[in-house]
């Protein structure tokens, strides 16, 4: 067993007038590298009032995005050794820039609203064939790096442009999904989709800071997708 020090952001609106950091020590098995979520579960066994979201515990559901020692990531696939370093001290805060509901749980409404704004569904009004719509492997390959998004919000909440304009800038996750449909050979709403993005804020607030790319737990590249949308908008404008 070895000691892990955790500093957790605590805020329960029923009890606290303002947030505070709570320091805890947890005994962790020394024989393997735990994930940050494992450490949180040990902490919660000691203090059941510690609050966070979690589900799949394998990095595919996107529930446990949080700020881990200053960097957004998924607690379940971030190894303790990587996050805490040799000092074995974890600092856990909620994803930045969104209202906190309690402890590490943020209100994701704005994030989801921006996602819904881009019409995240396939639009094709032609009557479908009796079998599947055909798509070549090359056409399908264009969706790789896009469809894998798990909506964890790590990217969008690390983006200064989103912090500044969360109501008007779609943000990296929403734009990645927008391009996922723009790039799909089966989707017929390209013009309509672009028209809805063609304003100074929705896309063009992206300043290429690339925080989204460095934090994405799935290794996706929203900045590149935003660049492609930008090009499509510019081409369409000429």
């Amino acid at each position, binding site marked *: 067993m070895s000691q892990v020090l955790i500093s957790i952001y605590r805020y*329960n*609106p*029923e*009890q606290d007038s303002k947030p505070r950091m709570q320091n805890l020590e947890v005994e962790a098995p020394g024989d*393997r*590298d735990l994930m940050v979520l494992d450490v949180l579960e040990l902490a*919660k*066994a000691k203090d*059941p*009032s510690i*609050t*966070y*979201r*979690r*589900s*799949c*515990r*394998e*990095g*595919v*559901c*996107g*529930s446990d995005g949080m700020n881990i020692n200053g960097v957004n990531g998924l607690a379940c*696939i971030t*190894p303790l050794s990587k996050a805490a370093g040799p000092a074995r001290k974890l600092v856990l805060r909620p994803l930045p820039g969104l209202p906190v*509901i*309690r*402890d590490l*749980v943020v209100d*994701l409404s704005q994030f*989801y609203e921006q996602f*819904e704004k881009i*019409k*995240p*569904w*396939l639009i*094709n009004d032609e009557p*479908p064939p*009796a*079998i*599947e*719509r*055909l*798509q*070549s*492997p090359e*056409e*399908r390959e264009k*969706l790789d790096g896009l*469809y*894998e998004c*798990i*909506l964890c919000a790590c990217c969008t909440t690390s983006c200064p442009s989103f912090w500044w304009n969360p109501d008007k800038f779609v943000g990296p996750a929403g734009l990645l999904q927008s391009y996922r*449909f723009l790039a*799909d050979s*089966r*989707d017929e709403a390209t013009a309509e989709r672009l028209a809805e993005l063609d304003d100074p804020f929705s896309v063009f607030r992206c300043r290429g800071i690339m925080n989204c790319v460095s934090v994405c737990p799935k290794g996706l590249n929203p900045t590149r997708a935003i660049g492609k949308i930008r090009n499509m908008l510019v081409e369409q404008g000429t």
Partner: protein
Amino acid sequence: MSGFRQISFDAIIVGGGGAGMRAALQLSQSGFRTAVLSKVFPTRSHTVSAQGGITCAIASADPEDDWRWHMYDTVKGSDYIGDQDAIEYMCMEGPQTVYELEHMGLPFSRTANGRIYQRPFGGQSKNFGKGGQAARTCAAADRTGHALLHALYQGNLKNDTVFLNEWYVIDLVVNQDGAVSGVTAVNIEDGEVCFVAAAATVLATGGAGRIYASTTNALINTGDGVAMCLRAGFPAQDMEMWQFHPTGIHGAGTLVTEGCRGEGGYLINRDGERFMERYAPNAKDLAGRDVVARAMVLEVLEGRGCGEQGDHVMLKLDHLGADVLNSKLPGILELSRTFAHVDPIREPIPVVPTCHYMMGGIPTNIHGQALTRNEAGEDEAVPGLFAAGEAACVSVHGANRLGGNSLLDLVVFGRAAGKHIDELLQQGMQARQAAPEDVDRALSRLRRLDTSSEGENTAALREELQSIMQLHFGVFRTGEFMREGIAKLEALKPRIENSHLADKSATFNTARIEALELENLFAVAEATAIAAEGRDESRGAHARDDFRERDDDNWLCHSLYFPEKRKIGKREVNFRPNVVDTFQPKARTY
């Protein structure tokens, strides 16, 4: 209890996974006011973790493929206690259901001619077992569940389904006629308690793998729907049948898809021997999951396990080459590097059979109607109650599910339940009235927790429950050892019934949710234990050391667990498909 709000819908779906969202989609498309109540945002549901694919005869990999062959495989895989009317319906409706998903946008992988890519999976054959290995599992790389769940969520957004996300359903509201009027639920964010009334209540709450210590299942898989039925006095079917997936990552429990073996990977023991050749000379590593899991355990027990403790075997993939692994199994590379600290391009993955899937559940007919037993011992639909997906037992999986059949089950029977409810609503089905005391009863366990002043806390009790199940009700079972397990569960029961919730706050109180979930885990575990002890034969996933043979004279039937008597009875298997001839039971070899 006073002061709860009532909300009403035409239909409510409990659970936002594949089955729930497919049912909701059907009803929203027809314009009915439909709400999905999900304890997590829908794309966090466990369907997201399905990897390898969805099996059905779309005849892409093999133009001659036939849904009847898929049906044969599924009946055989079930060890002959899958209901043949339901399996026939699933295999026949499968292709249309998969095309609908594709039309909705699901990004399937593709073949050179633009069709959906299909890969071989365990237990698949051509020509009724006589034509060799089939490739029938439709895949979106190794992220099919993720792609499917997101496509369904997108479809529901498009069709204006109401989502009550992060709402936790406490219990069914059953009126004096035994009809279901809706559910009681708590909005997790602010703690508000509501009675959600509807003409139809669909339980699509998924599995309960968290009754075991080692499981591939998400932390949210706590058997909520099955437990609600048991508390309401409705029976559960085939609860002894739990699938142990051959390839969970050793130590972490994370799933490694059967698609790895479908793409050509195989298992080796400490001597580097491909041992499945001895256990299943024809299908080898693609035999039924129960067969492979037992072979792995036997290798370990006989001293041929890998690692310092000799407690696992290895899954070898490196011979497939980096290109195949990167394009077909990218998620597996990620998971192996993260959780097993190995790179499958160069070295094998340490794996061990891990609790994966609940074949049993709420008995239903093919329209998703939940069934109970009347006093004459006949099946009877529970008015207002439906179930689909892993929570239900329709039963297409019988004693052992084939890989790729769970996603198919979800969408086929989610859709079937939706269609049937649609018809009933068109015919004027109304919500059944509930009296205040009916709602009150469905709030009693919440009230107990909220007024508890002493008792043990959830985490330690849950861990105890999980180790009892892991030890006494695992891959191999014996009567005496199971009876010991049942005695331990009996001792644990009052401690869970008197557990203590220290934190009474209303805002996002996950301690309260976990305490409620623990009661559900216990209810499912108890049903599992009693059903497992009762079935004195070996069939499919249920392997008894003290009854090693399949006993068709006594047990070619479902078990039905009655919660009030805490005993099992028997229920007939359906051997009457509508279109094809019955598949008669025979010895099951691979």
